């Protein structure tokens, strides 16, 4: 499932393919047209008309379907504001550029906040670890004293 612009490009190429194939196939499968004032050697067979009309109907359906797909895809594109067409050198930053700069600044702020919170968490972790250490030392010392007094 590719993005809309790639789909659009594919449908345009598909339309070109259909147009080329239609002319080629119809030209190949067409009945020979009669020359004026010329005696024909044999009568053309009538049942050859059927596949020709099938082909022309098939290709007309294909081409119209591809064209409607193309129109539908074009309609589904989001509207592009004219300020983003920076094909000429403009000094005014476009709306998109402003949004990007704003987002970058917000991202920096969020990163700083996350870093601060991480530092706080690390500090708290250190404190809790030292507390646990001193607690475990105290418990061990008490146990040793108790064992010594028991002996």
């Amino acid at each position, binding site marked *: 499932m590719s993005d809309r612009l790639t789909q659009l490009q594919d449908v345009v190429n598909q339309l070109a393919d259909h147009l080329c194939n239609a002319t080629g196939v119809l030209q190949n499968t067409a009945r020979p047209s009669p020359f004026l004032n010329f005696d024909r050697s044999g009568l053309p067979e009538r049942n050859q008309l059927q596949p020709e009309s099938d082909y022309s109907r098939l290709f007309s359906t294909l081409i119209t379907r591809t064209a409607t797909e193309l129109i539908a895809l074009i309609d589904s594109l989001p509207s592009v504001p004219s300020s983003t067409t920076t094909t000429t050198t403009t000094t005014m930053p476009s709306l998109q550029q402003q949004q990007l700069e704003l987002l970058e600044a917000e*991202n920096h702020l969020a990163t700083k906040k996350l870093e601060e*919170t991480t530092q706080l968490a690390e500090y708290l972790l250190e404190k809790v670890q030292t507390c646990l250490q001193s607690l475990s030392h105290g418990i061990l010392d008490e146990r040793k004293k108790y064992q010594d007094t028991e002996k």
Partner: protein
Amino acid sequence: MGDQAPVLSSAFPLPPMAYIERFSDETKAPKPPAPIVGPFELFGAYVNLNEQDPIPTLESQNIQRVYTKPDDYKGELKKLCFSILTNYLDLLHIVSKSSNVQAKDAPELSLREQKLAEIDLLFVNIHHLINELRPHQARETLRVILEEQKQQRVKTSEKLYSFLNRIVDVLNSAVYSLNDLVPQLTEEQN
């Protein structure tokens, strides 16, 4: 993997040798290479990317621009689509009716060749219009990525902060319960 059987190689291609040589256990992975400035080689041809104009204009390629309003993308794309279809019908008409009529404007081309050239031009224009939308799409993608990153960072820091608050609460309650126990112990000792 390659130590035991040097003949065997992995299914994946090796990374660039310059990258491997610069990497070692002490140093971290090297920084990504800086963006290239100036012309570079692409599939044998030299490409010069212009930052102001990422898509080369039709004028620079000596191709006629058929659409009139470059701002109204959707309208122009639809008009081009319909023009292609009408020109194709004209071509079919020319090919089926006339034999090898010379074009009025360009006598060296036949009418069908001129019609083909017109259809070709329309297709080139429609592709060029689609390509012009690509930088806008790239900027939009960048904006969405930045937005997602920001949301993720804010959520993570908020979650971490709430966890820290809970930890502090648990520690405080532990200290209070310890304080309650200590007077009992001093009473027992006494």
